[in-house]
């Protein structure tokens, strides 16, 4: 199979994070390997640009936990990449923001847990909300484009109007109201996080009305929890088609959640292979590329080039087999598994379950200090 050209690299530069959000999509178990060094990341960035990548998202964990972030942004700009920082905002003081701006940072996506301080801090497991409001104001002041990302779930979905109002007052250009997708810690905490059908219907109405009202002012994107959809999401626009992820220890992944969701797939490491070879030739990138791998009902489905059979990680998590139709699809022989989850959840009524907070991995860091923990 001839590999297409990738457009975007997600650089997960560390799994360390001062927040403990129970919906985090990071792996719940990570190894003891060393994080990539500045030089290794610089090489990844150059090799990605040579492959055709035009955009890079610095993510994590909390990318600000790495002191060398401005160096990495500068390397990405030198490689002509458009640079996005995906951050909690914790640790973004004037000095660091100035250094990032001087390095050429193009845009920031700032996460929020709620509009309400107490609830937001409870969800984050950390007194983070006020720092986020500060961070948003600082980003606005240096005129870097700002997107806000609210992760929506059972405990905050009823505050959608207030969250939209906060986005308006912070003068964001773009707001994502994204229901939790169930990977990593979120999969573990699914029963506590998945909203009820009633909540989802109401939230969609509110988001649609806000989208119309704020058209031309703020772009609003509402992402449904896909368990309530009839057809699967077109995950990553297809496996190994447009996106790649490099995780903190150098594994190159078609999707950030693949390393934990699909344990039987072996992922190559940038420390032992060139990125070009991994993208084009590796088994992990070719396993689900295109339509050849598809079983029925995908194989003969007119939607197969539109939704690509949905999400491989979700198929693996819900059925134990990544090479099967995403069970969210109403045509999947496994849809009953999703319906059973929804039935059980919706029968809980107002009794929300407890969640398990994310804990930080034991990653060895070299010549690095975690700056964010002090905040």
């Amino acid at each position, binding site marked *: 199979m001839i590999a297409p050209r990738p457009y975007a690299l997600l650089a997960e530069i560390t799994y360390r994070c001062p927040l403990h959000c129970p919906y985090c999509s990071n792996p719940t178990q990570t190894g003891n390997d060393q994080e990539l060094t500045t030089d290794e990341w610089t090489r990844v960035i150059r090799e990605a640009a040579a492959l*055709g990548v*035009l*955009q890079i998202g610095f993510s994590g964990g909390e990318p600000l936990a790495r002191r060398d972030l401005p160096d990495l942004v500068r390397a990405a700009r030198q490689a002509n990449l458009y640079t*996005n920082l995906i951050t909690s905002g914790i640790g973004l003081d004037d000095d660091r923001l100035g250094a990032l701006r001087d390095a050429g940072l*193009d*845009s920031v996506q700032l996460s929020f847990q709620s509009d309400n301080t107490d609830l937001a801090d409870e969800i984050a497991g950390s007194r983070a909300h006020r720092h986020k409001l500060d961070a948003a104001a600082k980003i606005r002041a240096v*005129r870097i484009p700002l997107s806000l990302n609210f992760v929506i779930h059972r405990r905050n979905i009823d505050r959608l109007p207030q969250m939209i109002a906060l986005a308006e007052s912070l003068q964001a*250009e*773009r707001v994502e109201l994204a229901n939790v997708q169930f990977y990593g810690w979120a999969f573990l905490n699914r029963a506590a996080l998945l909203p009820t059908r009633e909540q989802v219907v109401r939230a969609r109405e509110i988001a649609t009305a806000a989208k119309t009202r704020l058209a031309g002012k703020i772009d609003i994107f509402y992402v449904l929890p896909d368990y309530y959809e009839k057809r699967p999401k077109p995950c990553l626009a297809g496996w190994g088609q447009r996106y790649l992820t490099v995780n903190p220890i150098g594994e190159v992944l078609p999707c950030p959640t693949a390393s934990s969701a699909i344990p039987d797939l072996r992922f190559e490491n940038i420390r032992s292979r060139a990125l070009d070879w991994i993208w084009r030739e590796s088994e992990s990138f070719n396993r689900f590329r295109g339509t050849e791998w598809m079983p029925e009902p995908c194989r003969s489905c007119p939607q197969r080039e539109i939704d690509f059979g949905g999400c491989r990680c979700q198929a693996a998590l819900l059925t134990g087999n990544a090479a099967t139709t995403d069970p969210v699809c109403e045509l999947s022989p496994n849809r009953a598994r999703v319906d059973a989850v929804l039935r059980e959840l919706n029968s809980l009524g107002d009794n929300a379950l407890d969640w398990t907070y994310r804990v930080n991995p034991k990653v060895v860091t070299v010549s690095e200090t975690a700056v964010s923990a002090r905040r």
Partner: protein
Amino acid sequence: MQAPGIAGSAQPKLAGGVRLQTDSKTGNGVLLFPEGVLELNETAQDIVSRCDGRTVGEIIQTLAEEYDVDPEMLRADVQETLGDLQHRKLIELV
């Protein structure tokens, strides 16, 4: 379809956070913006690369001279392209 209401005197410019650059893989122009890439065709690239303070009327005039055609034949195309880019918030009209 002609986009409504783009005056010949309007000065289009790239919106904040939007970058025009040449894609080294294809040699074509691309617009880069938060979480997105728009690959431009040749005409769109010719138009966008002239969104530098010139008015819409001046852009049409310059392109007409370069392509050696009547400006009137270009007007609808230029307005449609600019209208589309404005709708996507990739350019602003000053």
